[in-house]
């Protein structure tokens, strides 16, 4: 669906298009809900707080959802199960859970409960609706290496696509720069909640990702603008950037260690790349073709980092053994293919074959439409596997849109499953989430009821929508 949009994006700017360069952040601020400080503190180039999260958990009464089918994404599917959310955490999950006296009790009869869905690849906020040039902020297509740009500095919290994604059960996204550039910039890991500023959405403690892109898009964008114009030119571009970053890192690591003399000059591009070298920023790599992914694995080996996840990865099934051995994940679509040459070999069994080989995969959207039904996309990929004799369990398929993207973002200790102690990111579905007929009826983000299909008081609307988009009662 929405292929014309995709094609437009691919040809002009989008993701199935662009990228920029990474920079480095000092330790993110302390989090009210996420004590785990995942980015390291002392490897930073400069000793100052950079662009901290101001996210605050909303205070809510405890919520007990009972009598539902609880799919934990941690190996269990509990019929007539219950789950208790308290103080932004999952307090208990099981067949029998006692509710505190002040708990709001939700009857889950006939309903299903899953962790909040996580989209590892989104351009919400950076390619906002209504899709004008004025809101097109996803590709800093002025240089093939723009590691210095950060997606959060483009992100528009009033993007009317945000409430649509929330209504689809999404609780966390990675908002990425596009794929125009070899190195496109830092991603933003965001709690998908209504907010005035992106800082209020930044996932506390989350490490940044670095968007990189292989293949057709950088060639197309820079082929007539000084290059790279070939895939070999692209490889040289990544290598040159990381060679510079190695020198930068050495200088700063030395200074951080001995504080002798003036600190080295800051370089915003190299700060981010140095953080990749230190392992504090994960590489999130747009890459379609199997042979190119193998080249990128070698690039990681040359510079001592592991690519966290190949995105789009339509040919990942061809090298699933190499990915499994490298410990690199894959973020794939259920069935997109054919919109460009490097997407011609997409098959519906890609996800199932990756699962079978032990690759940590997730189903991503790269689409404001697809993000609204990641559960359906996971279902398609699961059943396609089963039909082809590559069986996938329901728990595994659920993990494709919950625990596995949480891992890809380095947040799997905090989100992605329904286990006590995890953040209370929870979706209540009208039926089996792998059915085309199921819809999210309630979405809790950190214990906050951010969406309730049956209650207009819990159907957030952006400023953009007021006075110009449809009347109450619609799912818009």
């Amino acid at each position: 669906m929405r292929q014309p949009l995709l094609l437009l994006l691919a040809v002009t700017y989008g993701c199935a298009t662009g990228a920029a360069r990474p920079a480095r952040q000092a330790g993110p601020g302390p989090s009210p809900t996420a004590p785990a400080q995942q980015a390291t503190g002392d490897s930073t180039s400069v000793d100052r707080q950079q662009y901290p999260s101001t996210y605050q958990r909303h205070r809510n009464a405890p919520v007990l959802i009972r009598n539902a089918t609880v799919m934990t994404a941690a190996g269990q599917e509990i019929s007539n199960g219950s789950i208790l959310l308290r103080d932004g955490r999952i307090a208990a999950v099981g067949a029998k859970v006692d509710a505190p006296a002040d708990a709001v009790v939700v009857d889950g009869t006939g309903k299903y409960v899953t962790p909040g869905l996580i989209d590892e690849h989104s351009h919400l906020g950076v390619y906002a609706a209504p899709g004008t040039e004025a809101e097109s902020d996803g590709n800093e297509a002025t240089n093939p290496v723009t590691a210095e740009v950060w997606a959060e500095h483009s992100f528009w919290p009033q993007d009317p696509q945000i409430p649509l994604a929330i209504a689809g059960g999404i609780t966390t996204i990675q908002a990425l720069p596009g794929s125009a550039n070899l190195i496109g910039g830092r991603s933003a890991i965001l709690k998908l909640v209504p907010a005035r500023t992106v800082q209020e959405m930044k996932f506390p403690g989350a490490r940044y990702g670095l968007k990189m892109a292989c293949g057709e898009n950088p060639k197309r964008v820079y082929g007539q603008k000084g290059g790279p114009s070939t895939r070999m030119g692209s490889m040289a571009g990544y290598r040159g950037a990381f060679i510079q970053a190695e020198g930068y890192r050495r200088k700063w690591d030395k200074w951080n260690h001995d504080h002798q003399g003036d600190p080295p000059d800051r370089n915003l591009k190299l700060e981010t790349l140095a953080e990749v070298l230190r392992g504090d920023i994960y590489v999130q790599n747009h890459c379609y073709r199997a042979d190119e992914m193998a080249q990128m694995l070698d690039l990681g080996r040359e510079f001592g980092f592991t690519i966290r996840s190949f995105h789009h990865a339509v040919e990942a099934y061809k090298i699933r053994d190499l990915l499994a051995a490298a410990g690199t994940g894959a973020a794939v679509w259920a069935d997109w293919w054919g919109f460009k040459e490097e997407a011609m070999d997409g098959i519906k069994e890609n996800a199932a074959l990756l699962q079978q080989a032990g690759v940590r995969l997730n189903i991503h959207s790269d689409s404001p439409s697809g993000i609204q039904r990641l559960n359906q996309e996971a279902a398609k990929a699961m059943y396609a596997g089963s039909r082809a004799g590559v069986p996938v369990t329901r728990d595994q398929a659920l993990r494709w849109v919950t625990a596995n993207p949480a891992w890809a973002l380095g947040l799997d200790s905090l989100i992605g499953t329904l286990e006590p102690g995890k953040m209370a990111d929870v979706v209540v579905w009208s039926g089996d989430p792998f059915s085309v007929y199921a819809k999210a009826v309630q979405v809790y983000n950190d214990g906050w009821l951010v969406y309730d299909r049956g209650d207009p008081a819990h159907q957030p609307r952006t400023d953009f929508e007021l006075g110009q988009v449809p009347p109450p009662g619609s799912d818009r």
Partner: protein
Amino acid sequence: MIALLLAQTIAITGGTVYPVSGPKLGNATVLIRDGKIVAVGAGVAAPSDARRIDAQGKWVTPGLIDGASQLGLVEIGAVAGTREGTLRGDTIAAAFNVAEGINPASVLIPVTRIEGITTALAAPSGNLVSGQAVLIDLAGGTIEQMLVKSPAGIVADLSETGKAEAGGSRAGAADRLRRVFRDALQYERRRPDFSRAQMQSLSASAANLEALLPVLHGQEPFIAYANRRSDIETALRLAREFKLRLVLAGAQEAWQVAGALARAGVPALVEPLDNIPSYDALGVRYENAALLAKAGVKVALMETDTHNSRNLRQQAGNAVSYGMSWEQALRAVTLSAAEIFGVADRYGSLEPGKVANVVVWSGDPFEFTTAVEHVLIRGEEIPLKSRQTELLERYRKVPPAY
């Protein structure tokens, strides 16, 4: 070879049959001979020479029809040399019929048909008047063998993209269409004067004016893309003024004027999963298809991503999720589409005399769990193979055995 295959008699037995033209039939048989359906019902006996397809426990429906695609007209989206749907150079491209651009060898065709889509509109795009769409079956070695109806309608674009072709104003687009319609009618009255160059110049070429006449005489549908409510109303106004057989496409804000569409008898081609607001349709919403159907508008569904035309099933399932009845949704991907494109005498339902485009499903065609078990196009069983199934087989083991 083809004659031999067509002579085959096939009996699909024991399934739950959804004829669409009538209520579902339990434990029924669909009997096919010479590419046509000859009998449908519980009491139909299979002749002894018939090849039997056991459909016990299965669902049997007509092949699905995608109300908008560019199947056969595009191979690789980003490779211009493989795209055939847009004619450059003439914003009134009424004479442009896409048929000869169709590539019967397109790898998209097997990918699509093995998931139960047997027929699709292959439509032109771009320009103010995009050209002539054709209806094709997703089988056949030549264009002639694929064609179901040519033209199936003339496509025009009254949306935001269309106005750019008419000077940048919506009013300009409507005015341009009016002028060209009037010119076509004048051309028809004064062909001899035109050929002697004894009349003032007209706003389109003779070929394009000629091509518009069947639309202006109500013989062919005028398929107008329009999304904003005011654009839909403009399309209705044009249809009244020129007595067009209007078919709306896109129609994202049509739910706001559903009653008017129903009263005017104007059908709509909609994509249920459209809901991203743009300035062309801030009121786009998931319930569009359902609200139109409820108001009595004839609705057919589209999957506009040609490579994933197979996701028409998912579109239909979501239309049900947002308020269409299941029966309405099945009709919207079969008989209603056939009616809109003027082929309901041959397509869209399981009835004696109709072309045998039939699908046997393991269950509800709209559900993800459901597998396609048999696809018949014009009475011929289609092997469930595509370039994608070949890739799967090659890579079942890595490294593959080449």
